[in-house]
């Protein structure tokens, strides 16, 4: 069983296959794990599509599966996995993070309180939010 961690998602994917640095996912699993859709024009989310590079198509696509790890690196995002290849993080690249911050739109997130109730930053739209961190350590 392969688990993919992406942003705040954690998705168990019984049909995924890992092979060294490659992570083979079908379109449905990719969408579930990351929110990206694999379409004829490439990997798409919202208004953005990133084509699978033609020169590497034979390497990145096998039948109905895509090497999402290879594609992720191609898009400039970090990929890390444990030594068994069962646990993968598909991260978000620094350029995307920097771009989101430069727009000065506060990136949205959802986090639980101690009772497990989820709070989204966007739930507080309409108020001034003093977002402050702390820790016990």
């Amino acid at each position: 069983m392969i688990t993919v961690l992406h942003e705040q998602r954690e998705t168990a994917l019984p049909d995924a296959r890992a092979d060294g640095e490659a992570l083979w996912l079908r379109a449905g699993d990719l969408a579930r794990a990351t929110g990206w859709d694999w379409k004829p024009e490439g990997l798409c989310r919202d208004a953005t599509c990133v084509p699978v590079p033609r020169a590497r198509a034979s390497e990145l696509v096998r039948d109905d599966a895509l090497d999402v790890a290879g594609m992720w690196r191609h898009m400039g995002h970090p990929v890390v996995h444990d030594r068994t290849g069962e646990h993968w993080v598909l991260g978000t690249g620094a350029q995307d993070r920097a771009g989101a911050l430069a727009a000065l739109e506060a990136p949205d997130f959802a986090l639980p309180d101690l009772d497990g109730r989820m709070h989204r930053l966007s739930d507080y739209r309409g108020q001034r939010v003093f977002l402050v961190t702390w820790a016990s350590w």
Partner: protein
Amino acid sequence: MWQAVFDELHTQGFTVLAVAMDTPEAARPWIEAARPAYPCLIDRDHHLADLYHLVNVPQAVWIDESGRIVRPPETAGATDGFRVMDRTTFTMPEDAAAERARVRQAYVDAVRDWARRGAVSRHALDPARAAARLQPPAPGIAQAHAHFRLGQHLLRLGREDEAQAQFAEAIRLHPDSWAMWRQAAPKDARGLASGAAFWARVDALGDRPYYRPVELD
């Protein structure tokens, strides 16, 4: 620290959103003791640090009614005064303690002014000034967060050694993050990562700050 401002102004379109970059187990006793009236969220995987490029606590971001950042991540009322304290008695020289109190009060006053007056507060930065203060993450930092995330996940699976290897790589790639280092470091009986390794790392900063000072205007 933020309760008074919240009590005073939460009916006027202002809220505090406190986020513990911590495990729920470690954060719980603190939250239950303080019983704050504002939401206290738990971010065990440090998602916020990845999204906002945070490196330590306490840091704060001011977000206006439309979801726009009017003050990018910054130190929230803390100083480097602790660096000159006596490391066995934990006492601080008077001048450092006074400076710490002054900085904290000035920051709380700034938050209160913005909480009350919103965009006309001189502490709310216009977009050009806010953008100028942003510190975008370097490429290795996103990679560091990916390792940290995997480490936290492996820790929950009971794979401690592999988790520590992921944390070590995260810290190597993102040496400025005290949040990663302290979260991963061994804790003392009080739950603090403040042993000899911590002080050695603080001393290695030399002239660089642990808490970057804030320009309030």
